[in-house]
């Protein structure tokens, strides 16, 4: 039997990070202890059942280093399989989940946790940018020009708009519909409705993207409990398959090519669906990692939900929104639910689990299968998972 998601819990994405020198504040591990207890209760397992914990590595602003060992001691966890902090750019959360599934599939543990806390909303922006430009570029040949993580997506946007004959107005529709989904998601950070004009008139950040085309700063904490298939209830959510892709580039590559065609995303999803034995047409929930409006458009096209150079127009027509025929990112995605970057892959799994358990409220999709897709760099790497109801 395939490993199952036995339970999950998360903080609503938001702003939790205390300011420097705060007193009476609640720090990462206390938030995560609450989430852990909720997730274990949901899963119907005890702390003593946990054999492995795979955690997302904390951001540099976290004071407590060696976080996972520290946290396990506070939680009373005595792992007999693995305690591991992982870091893989934007795929960090999805990778933590992937490895937790492996711990169960390999027979190392009956129960494995994919877990993480991400506090960065109060960190000085200059610090975040200084480390960001070193992470998403060749430090000697790209970072020296000043490109920040989101500016790579801006470069994609300029090219996409040129090739597709689209405008900022169509991209803005991604931000608008993300808020529409988020309004139905109690775990979402950005739930207030916005209009196309709001997006177009927001201050430019990395042209052609403005403030509402790019993610806000987000904190979060989440725990996903993975267990053996035979431990799960009949209607539990199974992990049916996974797939990985890598385009061989670091950000833009060194050889001219179409960098708006996300080949790693396409490969990862195709491999995951093949491994799961699930047809794309049978998937009704797509949680695609997309920090910026343009990124969702490119990911939608890459995985084949809409034809090349059509997704921006289709989004503007409402097709990927709550009432559309190709709903995408029902959680609200990075622009609606929020983007605590190391955890985004785990919040995607959380949404897939909620959807397949029929707990998604007004954003509920009627489907037996969900796909999550996370990415690193400029979609240079991609990691996909396919979920299905066991019953």
């Amino acid at each position, binding site marked *: 039997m395939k490993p199952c998601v036995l339970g999950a819990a998360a903080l609503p994405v938001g702003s939790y990070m205390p300011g420097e020198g705060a007193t009476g504040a609640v720090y990462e591990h206390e938030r995560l202890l609450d989430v852990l207890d909720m997730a274990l209760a949901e899963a119907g397992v005890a702390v003593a059942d946990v054999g492995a914990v795979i955690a997302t590595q904390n951001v540099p602003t976290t004071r407590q280093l060696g976080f996972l060992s520290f946290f396990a001691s506070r939680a009373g966890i005595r792992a007999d399989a693995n305690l591991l902090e992982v870091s893989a750019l934007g795929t960090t959360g999805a990778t933590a989940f992937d490895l937790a599934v492996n711990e169960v599939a390999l027979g190392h543990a009956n129960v494995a946790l994919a877990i993480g806390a991400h506090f960065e909303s109060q960190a000085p*922006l200059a610090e975040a940018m*200084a480390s960001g430009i070193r992470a998403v570029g060749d430090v000697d040949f790209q970072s020296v020009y000043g490109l920040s993580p989101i500016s790579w997506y801006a470069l994609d*946007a300029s*090219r996409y708009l040129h090739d597709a004959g689209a405008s900022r107005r169509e991209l803005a529709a991604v931000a608008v519909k993300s808020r529409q989904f988020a309004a139905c998601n109690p775990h979402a950070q950005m739930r207030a409705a916005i209009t196309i004009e709001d997006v177009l008139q927001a201050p430019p950040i990395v042209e052609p993207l403005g403030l509402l085309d790019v993610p806000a700063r987000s904190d979060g904490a989440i725990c996903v409990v993975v267990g053996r298939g035979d431990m799960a209830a009949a209607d539990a959510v199974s992990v049916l398959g996974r797939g990985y892709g890598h385009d061989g580039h670091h950000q833009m590559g060194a*050889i001219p090519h179409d960098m708006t065609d996300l080949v790693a995303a396409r490969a990862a999803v195709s491999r995951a669906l093949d491994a799961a034995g699930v047809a794309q047409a049978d998937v009704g929930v797509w949680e695609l990692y997309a920090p910026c409006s343009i990124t969702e458009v490119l990911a939608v096209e890459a995985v084949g939900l809409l034809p090349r150079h059509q997704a921006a127009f289709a989004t503007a027509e409402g097709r990927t929104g709550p009432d559309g025929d190709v709903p995408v990112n029902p959680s609200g995605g990075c622009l609606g639910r929020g983007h605590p970057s190391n955890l985004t892959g785990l919040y995607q799994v959380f949404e897939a689990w909620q959807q397949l358990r029929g707990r998604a409220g007004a954003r509920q999709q009627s489907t037996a299968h969900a796909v999550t897709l996370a990415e690193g760099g400029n979609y240079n790497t991609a990691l996909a998972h396919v979920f299905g109801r066991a019953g």
Partner: protein
Amino acid sequence: MLERVHIGGPMPLLPRRALANRYHFEALDAGRLETRWCRGCERFSFPPQNRCRHCGGRDVLWREMPAEGVLFAQTTMHAVADGFRAHAPLHIGVIDLSCEVRLLAWLLETPIALDTPVRLCALHFDDGTLIGAKELT
């Protein structure tokens, strides 16, 4: 030779002048755009390294690249890291050279339509050089 454009002051972020790439930066300071060229497959590798990125060959020479290309993508960055504030907003382009090399440059004129031919130039700071680009006229 690349046109020399004086910027002055310190570079916002200094590249490391390493064994494998120091000559590239010294040549750029002198107005030449040089990188490694493979004698085996006769292709350029940029950024320069001692192993051809196409065939893995080690028989690589320094060779000058053409200073003209076309603009593939661009952005104007208003939110920039600390060291770059004096130069904000940053106009950055992705340039495709005819020798199968893609690189970054600061655009000295904006807007430039994508697919427009551009000419590279050398942006001189007190302690190094970045690649710039202007519309080819």
